[in-house]
């Protein structure tokens, strides 16, 4: 079975990377990161007594949050195209008459969705950390400094001072945790798209419904904060928001174990449920198109 799934994954990736979509998707994600990091958007800093006390992690939180929101949207789109695309094109007739089982095909589709989501996540992490170091880098002594500004302690061209209460290692640790917590919500978004995709033979209907439901859920979670804690995609917000606030100097903002647990448990359980439901639909359906 492993060999068959391996062949199918290679097959899926070969198809995927010969299309424009994966490359097109990269542009807005990388663009969002670069725009936020370079323009210094959404930095609050009201809690900071001295406005000169700034650091690149303040930007990083906003950049990653926007970029990963985009990744979650693309995860839904790519996954909702996955099964319905084969059905609408009629290419299942070519694939499923070969010596592979439906389980093999489903596992390979889920793996490819996961690989794409993780690749986009890694691209976000790589670009944002690269931007952090290039535009808002740290000097060897731990000071915030841009290598582009000849060693002066500057940020976006302005001279700044580092805050001893917000050491680099602590802020970096916050972001590592925040980014780790954002992986499962992204995967759950992908598996949500896969579930919708398994229900339709028509890509337009699958993508449209998946996007509508994903946006509606996200909107609902943003409005009703209590219920929002249990929405798989909204779990993306928790870690990065906390890390950003801590970077901005909200010293009273602490990590909460209960919230951390919820931030990975809700998308984990949702993702498993979506995968199970999508599998049950896919293996039972008649391929009529």
């Amino acid at each position: 079975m492993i060999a068959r799934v391996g062949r199918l994954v290679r097959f899926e990736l070969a198809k995927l990377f010969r299309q424009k979509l994966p490359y097109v998707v990269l542009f807005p994600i990388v663009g969002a990161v670069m725009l936020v990091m370079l323009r210094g958007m959404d930095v609050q800093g009201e809690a900071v007594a001295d406005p000169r006390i700034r650091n690149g992690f303040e930007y990083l939180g906003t950049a990653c949050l926007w970029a990963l929101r985009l990744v979650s949207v693309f995860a839904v789109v790519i996954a909702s195209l996955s099964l319905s695309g084969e059905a609408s094109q009629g290419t299942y007739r070519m694939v499923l008459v070969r010596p592979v089982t439906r389980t093999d095909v489903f596992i390979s589709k889920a793996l490819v969705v996961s690989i794409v989501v993780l690749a986009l996540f890694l691209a976000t992490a790589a670009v944002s950390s690269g931007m952090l170091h290039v535009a808002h880098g740290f000097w060897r002594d731990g000071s915030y400094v841009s290598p582009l500004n000849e060693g002066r302690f500057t940020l976006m061209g302005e001279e700044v001072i580092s805050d001893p209460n917000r050491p680099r290692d602590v802020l970096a640790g916050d972001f590592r945790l925040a980014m780790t917590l954002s992986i499962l919500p992204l995967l759950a978004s992908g598996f949500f798209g896969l579930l919708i995709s398994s229900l339709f033979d028509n890509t337009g209907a699958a993508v449209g419904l998946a996007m509508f439901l994903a946006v509606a859920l996200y909107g609902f979670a943003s409005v009703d904060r209590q219920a929002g804690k249990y929405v798989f995609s909204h779990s993306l917000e928790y870690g990065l928001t906390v890390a950003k606030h801590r970077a901005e100097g909200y010293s009273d903002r602490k990590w909460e174990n209960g919230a951390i647990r919820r931030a990975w448990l809700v998308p984990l359980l949702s993702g498993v449920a979506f995968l199970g439901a999508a599998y049950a639909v896919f293996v039972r359906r008649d391929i009529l198109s």
Partner: protein
Amino acid sequence: MEQAAPLTPAAPRASAAEVVLRTEGLSKRFGALAAVDGLDLEVRRGDIFGLLGLNGAGKTTTIRMVLRLIAPTAGRVLAFGQDVRENSLAVLNRIGAMVEIPQFYPYLTGRKNLELLYGLSGGRDGARVEECLELVGLATRGGDRVRGYSQGMRQRLGLAQALLTRPELVILDEPTNGLDPQGIIDNRRLIQRLNRENGVTFLISSHLLHEIELTCNRVAIVHQGRLRLQDDVKALLAHAKALATVRAEPVAEARKVFGLRKAEVVSERDGVFQLRCEPEALPDLAAALHASGCRVWELTPGRETLEDVFLAATGRGGAA
């Protein structure tokens, strides 16, 4: 519509060793509609087996069930003596198939499509891909993206992908759809050559009666989801009655002569009669026409074709 009785009794069952594919009571219902109803087919090793039926007769649904693209409501499919649902991997390893108009990934070249599909079956031999492109006459267009292919080219590429793994049984659903006359002839020759030289068994569904008659050695006729007939083409045609085409004037006089000579008029259009009578009776008929003052423009002996057998089996003879 009136149900026609089978023209010939079902052929005796072949031994299990000879049978490559067998369906037993195969049925599929879509809600109230019985698309396939208790179908018992038997394809033997070395056959070029034609599955004939009108549009909507249940041919494609049957093929989809054989290839487990859809689940039967009842009955089962045995290929190479094994239940297809229980041993799908072992069975599908030995089958090549093309279901309806083949669809490929349009942004890939024909060659890349074949390479990827061959890879799914564990194949890595690029030479085999080239060989199959050559077989179907697409060697020079293999590097073009499929989105630029005509329907006939896609059909040929579909045949190529079905042959990639050197299967023992090839299932082709309407393989001549979209092919030009030369393509149809090439397709037929290729099927017959592979059958003759490589011993490949074919199951071909079609509604093109003449093509099936020319290509297949055995045939089953399916109508409204039910098997109406299953036999050797030669045996069917051996039972077929002799026909004659006669054009004589005046028409009324000729009709009188046919009545007197007890020659059954099957049809008459524009003074051309189709008569059911043995060839030996034709000289006397010609003499009688001449004696009655008729001028005979044409008198051609012939036999019923598969089309006549089909029309009789599906109860459509009267509509012809």
